[in-house]
């Protein structure tokens, strides 16, 4: 057997202790933690605190559900897709068409029908597409989603095209709960569906199958080498995720009572991706935080100006990718881990080694920032007057201020960037 000198660790008693701790960790990991009640408590509290915002609340719940389905394939299995809207759309149109063309208006059976149709679409497309990875897969998922969109557009006599199918009618949930003007029934209905599906997804994630998915994400070559049927696993999870996205789409149609072809748009795929990334991938609750934060920000900022909001998403994405790749939840976890885990799972934070910092690089960054500031300053002066920023957009001198501000801002960003680079170098950024 291996020599005794292979480990300088503790003796037999210590080893038994370590063994016990390790086993306990895995044995307990899937159990519910008190903190996991938090999102549900907030959701229920929201029902009482904002009774007149329940239509918006339902949209948040629908997007959470959609983001969870994406998390299953992106966060756990590592499948990068730009066409997840396809399954959302298939679900949305299943109940929409069933109601408008077939008179099938019972909501819960509608959800099941949507799940089955979307699962079918997921299984067929997944079986063909999931042989590929990387850019090819990206393009195939994108093209497939648009192809379905164009099919719907082609047969706009059935689907209603971009005008959609307004004024859809659905029966009361369980035949008892009538829809009300403020969407309170819808909210509780969506919350119940979300809870049921979430429980299901949580089981999957902590199952051996879920473990195998993370294995595929972490290292597909090794998965092949240990005899894992990778393609079968991927198609399975893709089908499940498609079904869940389909349920989310069906809920979307039912709670809005209308549906248009925009549900298939690239925008829909991109939006859910941004939400998930913002919240954090591969950790279930990232979908909750991401969708809620995104939609609440959108709700407030786009009232101010849709243009600002769009610029805001861009910046959010940039900052998330460069500095907080694990999303809001990742940041929260890092903060929490420092306190509670006592180094049992050691986090290697990004650090700046000041002596290694290349000041020339930061100077270059400041130069870039100055260029940006200069451009913005000129553009602002050429452009328009704005009450809030009148000095910055009318005084020629303000160009200098823009330039300086740009230089300072980008220099600051660059120093922050070093943290990121350091993290990649030490390999402590997940995936």
């Amino acid at each position, binding site marked *: 057997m291996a020599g005794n000198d292979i480990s300088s660790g503790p003796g037999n008693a210590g080893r038994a202790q370590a063994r016990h701790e390790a086993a306990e960790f895995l044995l307990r990991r899937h159990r519910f933690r008190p903190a996991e009640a938090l999102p549900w408590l907030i959701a229920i509290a929201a029902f009482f605190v904002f009774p007149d915002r329940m239509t918006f609340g339902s949209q948040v719940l629908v997007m959470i559900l959609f983001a969870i389905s994406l998390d299953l394939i*992106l966060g756990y299995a590592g499948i*990068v897709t*730009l066409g997840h809207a396809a399954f959302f759309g298939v679900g949305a149109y299943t109940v929409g068409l069933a109601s408008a063309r077939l008179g099938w208006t019972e909501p819960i059976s509608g959800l099941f029908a949507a799940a089955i149709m979307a699962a079918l679409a997921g299984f067929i497309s997944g079986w*063909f*597409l999931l*042989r*590929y990875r*990387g*850019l*090819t897969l*990206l*393009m*195939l998922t*994108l*093209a*497939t989603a*648009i*192809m379905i969109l*164009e*099919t719907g*557009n*082609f047969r*706009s006599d059935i689907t209603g095209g971009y005008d959609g199918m307004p004024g859809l009618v659905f029966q009361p949930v369980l035949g008892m709960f009538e829809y009300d003007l403020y969407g309170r029934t819808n909210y509780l209905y969506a919350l119940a569906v979300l809870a049921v599906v979430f429980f299901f997804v949580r089981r999957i994630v902590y199952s051996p199958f879920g473990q195998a998915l993370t294995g595929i994400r972490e290292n597909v070559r090794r998965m092949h080498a240990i005899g894992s049927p990778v393609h079968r696993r991927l198609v399975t999870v893709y089908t499940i995720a498609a079904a869940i996205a389909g349920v989310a789409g069906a809920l979307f149609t039912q709670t809005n009572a209308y549906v248009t072809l925009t549900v298939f748009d*690239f925008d829909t795929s*991109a939006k859910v*991706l*941004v939400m998930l*990334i913002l919240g954090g991938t591969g950790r279930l609750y990232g979908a909750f935080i991401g969708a809620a934060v995104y939609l609440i920000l959108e709700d407030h900022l786009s009232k101010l100006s849709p*243009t*600002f909001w*769009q*610029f805001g*998403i*861009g*910046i*959010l*994405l*940039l900052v*998330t*990718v*460069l500095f907080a*790749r694990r999303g809001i939840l990742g940041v929260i976890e890092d903060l929490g881990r420092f306190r509670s885990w006592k180094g049992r799972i050691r986090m290697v934070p990004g650090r700046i080694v000041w002596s290694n910092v290349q000041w020339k690089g930061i100077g*270059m*960054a400041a130069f*870039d920032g100055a*260029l940006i500031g200069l451009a913005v300053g000129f*553009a602002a002066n*050429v*452009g328009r007057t704005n009450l809030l920023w009148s000095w910055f957009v009318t005084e020629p001198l303000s160009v200098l201020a823009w330039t300086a501000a740009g230089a300072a801002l980008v220099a600051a960003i660059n120093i922050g*960037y070093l943290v*990121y*680079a350091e993290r*990649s170098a030490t390999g402590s950024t997940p*995936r």
Partner: protein
Amino acid sequence: MPQVATIAVSILFDGLAYAMFLFITAVGLSVTMGLMNFVNLAHGAFAMAGGYFVVSLTQSYGVDFISSLIIASVLVGLISIRFERRLYRPLYKAGELDQVLLTIGLAFMAIAAFTFFYGPIPKSVPLPQWLQGNVDLGFRAFPRYRAFLIVLGLFLVAVLWYGFERTNIGARIRAAVDNRRMAESVGINVDLLFTVTFAIGSGLAALGGGLAIQLFGLTPYFAVLYLVLFLIVVAVGGLGSLKGTLMAALLLGIVDTAGKYLIAEAGGFFIYVITVIVLLLKPAGFYGRQ
């Protein structure tokens, strides 16, 4: 019968003009994606920026159309260098997801910024006299602008082909696309090569953006509206292949135009069907490395 021939000629002519626009705009994307495997969803934003520079130069500064195209392309090419060095470079080794997110973010910011300064209303551009109206080729009259686009496109194909196949730098690019590590080990400065290629590609995109104003009108959403098409041209043609990009642009340009002439309701349906079929059969595209 003559009517069928007329329609066929129209499809061919419009399809060719469309294909040339696709080729000019997408070729830079193809080479940079082939060289660095970088998924640049902000490529359309560079094209859009080029378009708006042309609008500003012609309308606010009175520069003529052709000179504006050249100035805008050079300007965007130079600006793109800073983007490449600053934002793209650190993510070359990251996964395609990070690249997608970063560049989508950039595209969103560009759309918002240009909406802020130029507004959401479509812009047009004043054309010189010699590009207006139709040119009569005996059996049928064709719009001069589209004819110009075809001629310019063919000219650029020739220039790029020469640059790619016959010059030293072209040989280096091909070597680096083929096998980056090998190219580095024989002393090719791939980093610099990529910056240069990226700048040229972005400059060409800006040219495409400027040329597209007359065809489609220019709004800030140009940055994402045609992006999917560029990506499809690149993927179907094969990353880093000039010939592939041209073939794919021709195929998709003509098929799309034919689809719109013959079955208007189908929209872009056919090109997506073709894309999926081609990629399933040849995942690396027509001329890509397997």
